[in-house]
């Protein structure tokens, strides 16, 4: 039997930091997983790219000069790339359980109408929608209190349209994780709530419309990351060949390279994957018991480690709804991610690090 595969699309316009986020997420999650006895390994094609990007980020946060604009020029992705990772854990019985995770990274320019984006989005389970925090926060406009360059840099409408097209015929689940990158400037000033408020103000309406069109769209969860840690916003500057200014950054004196919180988006993804897997198990059990409530109870008793979820307000109700929906769509068993128990156990430990206060859930 092949490994379950989790397809994650990195979503966002050009230069927003999708690839950098991926590299940072991998680094942090890899460390956390290794602490709980699991491995998170890129394949041979992925390894050099991720390593190079990590090194670029590290270089950015190194040295003593404040001005980082000439240290390294991080190139935008020019073509679709697939980054494959294998998350695996060796069990006591020497058996290995694995989960394939594939990140699809496409050039930001494709989101304006390239059909390849639509296809990838339609086929992926999860998307990580990357948003530049500085564009959202800096130089807010009087009427909206949202950064005046948010529209041109984060381009929410274009991304929304891509989702809309991709989900026009969608019948399966999809989970959107929103991730605020370049959040260092605001975390150091305790402006996390402000970031979430502005994110909500900018995106809630779009997400709501998307949800109405695509009922299979689950909750949307957001978090923020610091991919370098010691870089903050300096000014907006427009170069000669640019249509609009871009943010320039500077190093904090006396601080070292210290990325933080980069695993948060993937925790959201993992939580989703675990719920998916739980749903699959319940549906499978229900085929025998023929009673969904009994099936839920049976699975819950068999999976006491899943108390994390059971305790969450509304989880059971949402789960039932999802299950009913999946059943109505006559999902095939293997269309849902089914994670082995050993791997579930490991992933649950990762979930222990998920603090609800670090996340924002859109009320759709």
């Amino acid at each position, binding site marked *: 039997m092949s490994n379950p595969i989790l397809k994650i699309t990195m979503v966002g316009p050009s230069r927003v930091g999708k690839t950098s986020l991926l590299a940072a997420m991998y680094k942090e999650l890899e460390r956390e997983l290794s602490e709980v006895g699991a491995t998170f390994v890129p394949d041979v094609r992925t390894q050099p790219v991720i390593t190079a990007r990590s090194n670029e980020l590290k270089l950015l946060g190194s040295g003593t000069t404040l001005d980082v604009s000439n240290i390294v020029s991080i190139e935008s992705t020019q073509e679709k790339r697939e980054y494959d990772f294998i998350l695996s854990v060796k069990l006591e019985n020497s058996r290995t359980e694995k989960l394939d995770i594939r990140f699809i990274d496409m050039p930001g320019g494709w989101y304006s109408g390239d059909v390849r984006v639509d296809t990838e989005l339609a086929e992926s389970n999860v998307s990580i929608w990357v948003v530049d925090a500085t564009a959202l926060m800096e130089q807010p406009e009087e009427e909206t209190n949202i950064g005046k360059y948010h529209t041109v840099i984060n381009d929410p409408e274009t991304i929304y349209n891509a989702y809309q097209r991709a989900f026009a015929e969608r019948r399966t689940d999809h989970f959107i994780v929103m991730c605020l990158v370049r959040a260092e400037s605001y975390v150091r000033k305790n402006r996390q709530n402000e970031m979430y408020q502005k994110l909500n103000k900018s995106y809630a309406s779009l997400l709501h419309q998307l949800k109405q069109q695509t009922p299979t769209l689950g909750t949307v969860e957001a978090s923020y990351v610091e991919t370098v840690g010691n870089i903050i916003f300096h000014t*907006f500057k427009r170069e000669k060949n640019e249509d609009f200014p871009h943010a320039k950054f500077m190093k904090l004196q006396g601080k070292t390279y210290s990325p933080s919180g980069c695993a948060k988006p993937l925790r959201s993804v993992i939580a989703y994957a675990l719920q998916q897997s739980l749903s699959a198990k319940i549906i499978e059990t229900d085929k025998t018991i023929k009673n969904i409530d009994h099936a839920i109870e049976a699975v819950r008793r068999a999976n006491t480690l899943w108390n994390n979820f059971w305790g969450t307000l509304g989880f059971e109700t949402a789960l039932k709804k999802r299950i009913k929906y999946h059943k109505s769509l006559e999902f095939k068993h293997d269309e849902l991610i089914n994670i082995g128990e050993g791997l579930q156990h490991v992933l649950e430990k990762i979930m222990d690090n998920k603090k609800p206060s670090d996340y924002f859930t859109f009320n759709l």
Partner: protein
Amino acid sequence: MPISTESRTAKIQSIIESRKPIAQKTAETINKLNNLKNLLEKFARFLPIVLEKEIPAENKTKIEELQNSLKKFTDEHIPKYSTEIAQIERRFSRPTLNIGVVGNARQGKSTFLQALTGLSSNEIPSAPDGHCTGAPSIIINNPETFADIEFYGEKEFMQEVIFPYYTKLDLTPQPDSFSSFANTPIPNPTKEFNATKKELYKKLIDRQQHCQKYRKYLNQPPCRINKEQIREYIAQQDKDKKLLSNWIAVKMATIYCPFKIPDAGKISVCDTPGLGDFVCGAEENLIRNIADNLDAIILLKLVPDGGIVKPEDTQLYDLIPKAIPEFSPKDWSHFIINRKNSDENSSINYFEEQLKASAINVRRIITVDVSCAQDVLTSFDQILDDIKNNQQSLDETLYNKRFENIKTLVSNLNEYVEKVKDSLPKTVAGVGVPGKFDKMFIARWSKTETGLESINKKYQERCNTEDVEFVQKLEEIENYLLHNYDFSSKLKESDAFGAEICQYFGNKFHELRIDLATAFDQLDKGLDKIILKVRQEVCDVFQHADQGGLENIFDVDLKIDTRKWLLKLADQIREIDGGEKIAQTIQYFADASFSFRNHLLYRIRKNIDPLGRNDDFAILPQDTFEMAYEKARMAWEKAASDCCAALQSLAKEPNRAISAFVEDFCDGVLRTGGYEEAKSVWRNFYEPYRADIWTDEYAAFEENTKLRDTWNKYIKELSDAVEQLKS
């Protein structure tokens, strides 16, 4: 009478000091006359405006008579009296006591002057034969010797030196310029000349023949020469008896030298050459010289053959009253008989008796050997004593007599002012169609309201838009700050050498903060424009002929300065019952301003202040100059960028402020106390100006309040000016 023991300097000083109060009074009188003349001329320009209005024929005739009388005052009487008073003002203000030595040629004047002044024949010629002094001169006691030479202008020269010959000799045509005189042959006599006229004719030809020599001096500014050059400019011949020509062009030579007589004080003596010589115009020049320059006159003459008084003596004597008619020659003239060694006492005595018996009446007759210095000194002291005892009463007499003319002028002017009062038609009550004004006002005010409301609406619509000029100016400033500000000249490693790095940069951050704030002062140029524009729009509504119609009610200059015009409007409205609040509204609007410093700086201060105080850019003791420079540069970029961004977000503020000003203005002007109440105030404001605004409807002068007010104002000013002249 024994000579007073008081020193000469003291005597002279006492005479000069005693004149100062009168000098002051005459100077004040001249000012008053000038003011009066200016006022009358202004009134003269005003009268035609009055005559344009519809006024009864009788009043028109009176005003025309006023015009004619006015011309006499401004063109004849006042200039004449002013000249007379000015003459005595110069007299009383003189810093020296001037004694003139008058006499025909070759009577010993120069020798007398040499004895007094210490000048020699090298300077003022006194040879027994030949020509002597040519140019008139004043010799002033002074420690150093030099001379200031004043030359004729060409026109003046023709008028005072050449034309008298043509007139005396009946020669035509007279040349119209010096060039013409120089280049055109002298006309031939039309009739046979007698011997005197022949000599005069020869003199005229001589003037022409030598004109190339002295021509270069005409029109030249006064020049200062040294002692050795004096004779060259005032004498008719040099020591070798070679004829000189420069003196012809000299109007007056003022010679400074230390007088021979000790303790001479502030004395000057004047030499008046030319009499008895064939010089046309010499008498006129003498009269002018006496009138303008002399405080006392010494007539000097050698004992004549036969010891009798000659016609030339009385002719000379008769010139004196022509200079200052208020004086008789005996009031201020002295006669010195110049005795030579060869003269017998009997001849001298005889001549003296003849003089006393003649019509030549002077204060004293003294016999002096002018070649004897002691004699000259003694006679000088006698004359000086006499002047001292006599001068004050002489001055007062002259002042009072001249002032009699002023009194006459005052009396005439008072009569004139009474005529002015009587010339205007009286105000006629109830003139005009009842209700006419109200109808016209309502129609005009309605248009004014519409105009103002239209401006208000326009600015309300713009209220929430960014001001384009503001944004543009901000972009320019941002570009300057981020790309063109010369950072490297501000922070120089050479300047920091030896200084502690934190302190050096700490000080520089202060300067950077100031530079940053002042860079934004440029915004005021755009902000000023916005204010001016809206103020102009409002003024246009009030002033436009089809709207407010108030264009011509104030001075023309005010119209150009909209702020002053509005303040003037506020002042006028304030005078109307109930107009205080409207006036205040207008005043606030006139003074409304929106400036960067007052309205925007405090809102971006938080972006400037971190410059140098932000820990993210803190200069550390261990930083090299390069590292610190980079931090300072980045701090500057951050602050400048943040300030520009903050101001960008405030780009709507100017329009908001303006719309608030305009709305407040319209509310205040149109609706203070209620709409009808406000309109009523404006109606009462407009009424006195009706003739200026509805000129066709109110052509009759009696309804022209403003013009009448101006007329009354002139009456008052003229009365005051005449009253002042009396005192």
